[in-house]
């Protein structure tokens, strides 16, 4: 049963890769050159924001990630792709502190995240969204985002209880900032609605807004386009670009190839917990190993 599914999936991926390639050829070399120029331009100033060093994770004998090395540069959109079970979400879970690395380490601005509490990792600048939406359903959209902004507040419970000036100031500032973020993402009209009553697409975007509320240096998006129609995907692509242009760095897990090829600055490919490619989108989509990973090589498939 799973074999059939896998073949279907592989075919779908192949077809989409093929479509994209033809698309690209038609558009001519101009775009290719544009991409390369921009990357060259980027290389002059690029600074490593997040680095995975020899990251290995095993769960009771199963190796989920095997010596993965990956660098994410400040201000880029890096897409992380790979077949199901390749270890993409595991990367997110290690970076955000949900799992501990068996060996190797994760560095943010050259500072190791090893052993750091999860809320502290969020505080120093990594925020994420979830593949299956996990909003605080009984809160309004605005409150969801304010909860994100709370991480940088300095006033605590007693300050709030007794209405200290700083607590009031921060409360007000958080509210203003949350509205700004909702406007930025384009869903401010929903700010007073309970999260669980929002339309699906808005919920997905609200997850991004909530993550942005924590004012992250690095934003991790876990399949943000899942369940979107083509029009919504285009809109989302623009939003993600807008987020990058506003100075955030984005690490993206996605299955939709056209979205990835359209917005990523670089693409890294995982297969069976190993990184098999890490390059410009145009290069990656022609990489033999990548295509094999998606199609399955007879020898490996057995």
């Amino acid at each position, binding site marked *: 049963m799973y074999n059939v599914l896998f073949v279907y999936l592989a075919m779908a991926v192949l077809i989409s890769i093929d479509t994209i390639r033809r698309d690209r050829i038609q558009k001519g070399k101009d775009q290719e050159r544009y991409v390369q120029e921009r990357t060259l331009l980027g290389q002059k100033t690029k600074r490593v924001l997040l680095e995975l060093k020899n990251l290995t994770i095993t769960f*009771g004998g199963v190796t989920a990630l095997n010596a993965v090395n990956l660098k994410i540069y400040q201000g880029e959109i890096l897409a992380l792709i790979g077949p199901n079970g390749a270890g993409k979400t595991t990367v997110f879970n290690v970076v955000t502190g949900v799992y501990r690395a068996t060996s190797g380490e994760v560095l943010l601005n050259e500072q190791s995240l090893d052993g750091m509490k999860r809320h502290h990792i969020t505080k120093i600048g990594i925020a994420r969204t979830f593949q299956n939406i996990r909003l605080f359903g009984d809160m309004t959209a605005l409150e969801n985002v304010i909860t994100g902004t709370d991480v940088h507040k300095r006033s605590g419970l007693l300050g709030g209880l007794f209405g200290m000036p700083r607590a009031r100031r921060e409360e007000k500032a958080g509210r203003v900032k949350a509205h700004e973020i909702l406007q930025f993402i384009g869903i401010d009209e929903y700010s007073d609605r309970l999260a669980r009553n929002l339309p699906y697409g808005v919920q997905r975007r609200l997850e991004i807004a909530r993550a942005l509320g924590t004012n992250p240096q690095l934003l991790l998006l876990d399949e943000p386009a899942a369940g979107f129609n083509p029009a919504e995907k285009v809109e989302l692509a623009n939003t993600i670009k807008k987020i990058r242009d506003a100075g955030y760095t984005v690490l993206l897990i996605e299955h939709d190839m056209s979205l990835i090829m359209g917005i990523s600055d670089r693409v890294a490919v995982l297969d069976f917990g190993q990184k098999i490619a890490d390059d410009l989108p145009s290069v990656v989509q022609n990489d033999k190993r990548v295509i094999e990973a998606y199609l399955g090589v007879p020898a490996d498939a057995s």
Partner: protein
Amino acid sequence: MFSTLIDQFWSLTLSGIALGFIYVLISLGYTMVYGVLRMINFANSEIFMFGTFATIVISRDFLGNVDGTKSLPLPKLILTITLCLLGSMLVSGLVAVFVELVAYRRLRARGTNKLATLISAIGISIVLSEFMRIITNSRPTLNPRVLEKKSLFEIAGASFRMDTVLTIIFAAVLFVVLDRFVKFSRLGRAIRAVSMNEDASKLMGVDLNKVISATFLIGGLMSGAAAFFYTLTYENTKFNVGFTLGLAAFTAAVIGGIGNIRGAFFGGLSLGLVEVYASSILGTEWKSVTVFIILVLVLVLKPNGIFGEAVQQTRA
């Protein structure tokens, strides 16, 4: 302070083992249900309590064992033990199924959060124990003696009494039967399948409601057996008898790694021994405090239990 422990070490060990076997059986009620539902069966202590009353009612009222000074003649004794054991198991098993029906099923079908189910289970547990309290007028109920506490033989100062020996042998046999059953029977496989992956087993055609009912039933049967041995040894019961024993048995299940059937065996025995040794040092009035501290220590230091497999929890 330690002199009692040293003087009576072997006899303490023996009673610790006997107590441990009672814990093993009750903790199976917790562990089995936890395995399939990932939820503590809060009413298990009341399921046990009903078993103790069933034993007394059968022995005293149905079989008319009211004399209570010496052992019954052998044929009557065998009849009493058989009927009481089976009756106690049956009653506890039925109460367990009833608990699942009333407190768990509806909430599970609706898929509410854990807190609601937990509160519902606590509610049913209160209802059961209050029901019994009102019936018995809060007084302890005595079980007229059916088995004289005569020593069969002695080894190293430990006297092997009839009831102790019976408890250990029967409980061990029941445990082995259960272990084999869960391993090899069709229903046992279904139970294990559900505890590994509920959704997948539903897809594979397992009737979830039936399996969960059966799990409660089996857990109840085991607690019922424990109730019989308890009543045989201690010869009295009360509406709140399940509270302390339940907490201890739960601790045993946690020590063994809750959800792990063989773990419950080791957990029950080790807790029985530790409790008996500790009581001889600190005094029996601190018994439940000792048990509780052990529980907290295990939960905080080794949440998967001492004998449990370290299962990586996917939490996000």
